[in-house]
């Protein structure tokens, strides 16, 4: 029984970092593809396609990470099936990781507003 609890708990603890990683891969992949295919002239909703897609991905990642943070703070965090001892730590870990990832995702996404996509 603890095996499933472990996989779920551990993934839960890492989820915010994993969201960061997915976001990072997504924005780098999107931009790389757009520049390699020379699609940087294309517009979406009146803005360069790279900016729209990257900001969209950033918004989604921020929402997800905020969800993890809220879950950790309101007690729906992973580790519910474990005893009180490690649970406090698991919640704190998840919350701190989510807060850190939130900032990192924002910090990574912001350059899209300023820097030209392909130059």
């Amino acid at each position, binding site marked *: 029984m*603890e*095996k499933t*609890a*472990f996989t779920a*708990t*551990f993934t839960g603890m*890492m989820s915010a*970092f*994993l969201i*960061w*990683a997915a976001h*990072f891969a997504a*924005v*780098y992949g999107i*931009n*790389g*593809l757009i*520049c*390699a*295919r020379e699609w940087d002239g294309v517009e979406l909703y009146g803005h360069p396609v*790279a900016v729209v897609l*990257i900001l969209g991905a950033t918004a989604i990642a921020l929402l997800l990470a905020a969800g993890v943070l809220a879950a950790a703070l309101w007690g729906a965090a992973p*580790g519910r099936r*474990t*005893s009180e*001892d*490690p649970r*406090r*730590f*698991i919640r*704190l*870990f998840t919350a*701190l*990781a989510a807060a*850190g*990832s939130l*900032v*990192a995702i924002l*910090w*990574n996404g*912001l*350059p*899209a507003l300023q*820097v*030209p*996509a*392909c*130059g």
Partner: protein
Amino acid sequence: MTPPLDDAALPNRLPRPKEELEALKRAWKPTSGLGLLKEVNNNIIGVMYIGTALLFFVISGTLALVMRAQLAVPENDVLGHSLYNQFFTVHGTGMMFLFAVPIVEAIGVFLLPSMLAARDLPFPRLSAFAFWAYLFGGLAFFCSLIFEVAPDGGWFMYPPLTSMKFSPGINADFWLLGIGFIEISAIAGAIEIIVGILRTRPPGMTLDKIPVYCWSMLVMAGMIVFAFPAVIIATALLEIERAFDWPFFIAERGGDPLLWQHLFWFFGHPEVYIIFLPAAGLVSMMVPALAQRPLIGHDWVVVALVGTGFFSFGLWVHHMFATGIPPLSLSFFSAASMAVSVPAGIQVFAWIATLGKGRLQWTVATWFLLGFLFIFVAGGLTGVMVAVIPFDWQAHDSYFVVAHLHYVLIGGMVFPVFAGLYHWWPTLKGTMLSERLGRWAFWMMFIGFNVAFFPMHVSGLMGMPRRVYTYPGDLGWNALNMVSTVGAFVMAFGVLLVLIDMARDAFGRGRPAPENPWKAGTLEWIPNDDYATRSIPHVRSLYPLWDNPNLSREVQEGAHYLPGAPTRRRETIVTSPIEARPQYLMPMPGPHWSHFLAGLFTAAHFICLAVQLYWVSLVPGVLAIASVFWWVWSLDRGADHPPQDVGGGWRVPVYLQGSENHSWWGTAVLLLVDGTAFACLCFTYVFLWTVSPDVWPAGTDALPGLGWLFGEAALWVVAAGAMLLASRAVAGNRSWAMRGALLVGLLLMLAAAVAEPYNRIGSGLVASESAYGAIVYMLASWQVFHVVILVLMTGLALARSFAGRLHARRRVTFDNVMLVWLYTCGQGVVSLLLVHLFPRLAV
């Protein structure tokens, strides 16, 4: 007279019967003389491992001194141009791959079990194998210098400089094969460390009570799992390009040298943290001991460690700022590079706060720690400087970078490791190194280091490029270089003093140490023997020795878990990963020749490949496989004993099947490595398409028909089904049904693996013609390789079945084969979907 211990609350009642300790001693008695080669005990392997890493440090350092001598004055001729290139390549490679990563793993092999109060790591033979492979491979690598066939393309080996056209000799092959295979030893160590930390903790050491060092090692091992496959794939691709002319990196045929840089730095940047995080973990253990108070912000430090592990994967392109990557892409990496300094900063604050609040003991370790803080912070600041893209364009490939990298690496890992050497030396055999010599050594290393490397910032800004073997005398760099060289020799003298100090101790001149000389709070300070601690303590806090002053005595008298060897052999307790509850008693393999021979023959095989003795290499190759068979044959013993009492009311089985078994965990981690390698190949496919879509087939005419896709995919799926049937047959003890299903499944997999290259050859695709052909055949070969491995593994399972060692209640070997098998089938399908559908869908 010390009062008797209160035994009511203790896991085992005192006093213990006398035979118990004797049985324990007998089971763990080390072999002597030549038997040392057979030994697997982590205390012994760990020491040999650390010693070898230090030896390789000295060799690589000596090369650096010769280089510094060459650069001391302009237009010098100690080393010629080509030899200088070999020297800096072997120095950089040696330091990064043969010293830095191995020594942090070696310290882990030595220290982790005692910090976790486990009798040994979970796969003792695997760490012994990793050690021997590393020793033989490393020695061969350095020997290439003697014959002047050492690699000369820098430790990062950028093509096209290292491709056949520009490096026709065997120099580059030495790097690719030598280092590629030492990576395998690093991965073996990582698997060991992950499973060890998650599963062999002492009862009561729940997730929140794991020492920081163990967290840092867990993060490091996890990073190895996800970073090293990238460099293994990169080296494999380059070696295949060199041997068979498959153009992965050759631009004229659709390849791209930048592909190498992506794969290499996807490993290479995390590598820096793979080296630094364990060192930071050591610091987080020494600081509380030296300050005599708990680490301030422990939970934050743990999150910071894990966060650094993740974030550092988002940095690889910062080594490629000058390669013409689009500006927005660069800024993601610039942002991530700055973000990663935040968790490092959290740790630095935690250390300083703890040191400031505590009552500091002034030991040699304290000095080295202060030196580390100073140098590392300085290196971090120059790191933030080069993360600024315009500054990087200015400083790129100048001595400024050489200065930065040595500040970070030497400050960030050499100083903490030397601090650790002095700090944990007493746990080795109860003696202490000399405080006086140590202090001298510290000051010479510290001053020498700064004198050597600080001027390089200046010479770099004055325009001195890196990797030059000499320079004209009228550029104003002469004095700076002379000072650097003098500093390097002063530092080397400091290192020499440490070696002398260790030699003195080895010859019996060390001072006997009191028990727990620095009054530390963690488990490794409980007196140890070959069998680790007498009993395995029940843990209730982060600093158990501070919270229970009696703990050490209780443990030594056998009042805690597993005070003897109930099944008369080497064993340790496996606990659950979150709450550390005892689950079963893991039998540990004892001394044996097999893993030693396996290491020796594996090294011999790769060396033969490097010097292009392809046919000869088959001999050690086959012998290595045979040794591995011999090695694993005696494992998986089944429940050969009834459940045993380990104390505290825990009666645990001696065997557990299924996903709780430690070897199942080891296999699962190995498959993560495998999956990452496969992901790198898929990345290669898509990356080569983005840079040269012109070599991809334009219409569907040049592609094999979709029938091939469906047919081959069906074969993989049915093969997976055959395995599931075989698994059912094992559960029902229907041996012949199982054997039949396995054979049918193997044949189906062979057919699937061969069909793919076969239909490609039929459609006229040639691997050496374009990067497209090369990667398509590479993905197909990857599947063939897996099927070959499965033939061996299934052969083992069948042999065990015929020998009566595989049945419903003893099926761990089978389950591990099943994991690899099912993974391979899944990978086969994904691979097919990619190569058949992508060219049809891509615009």
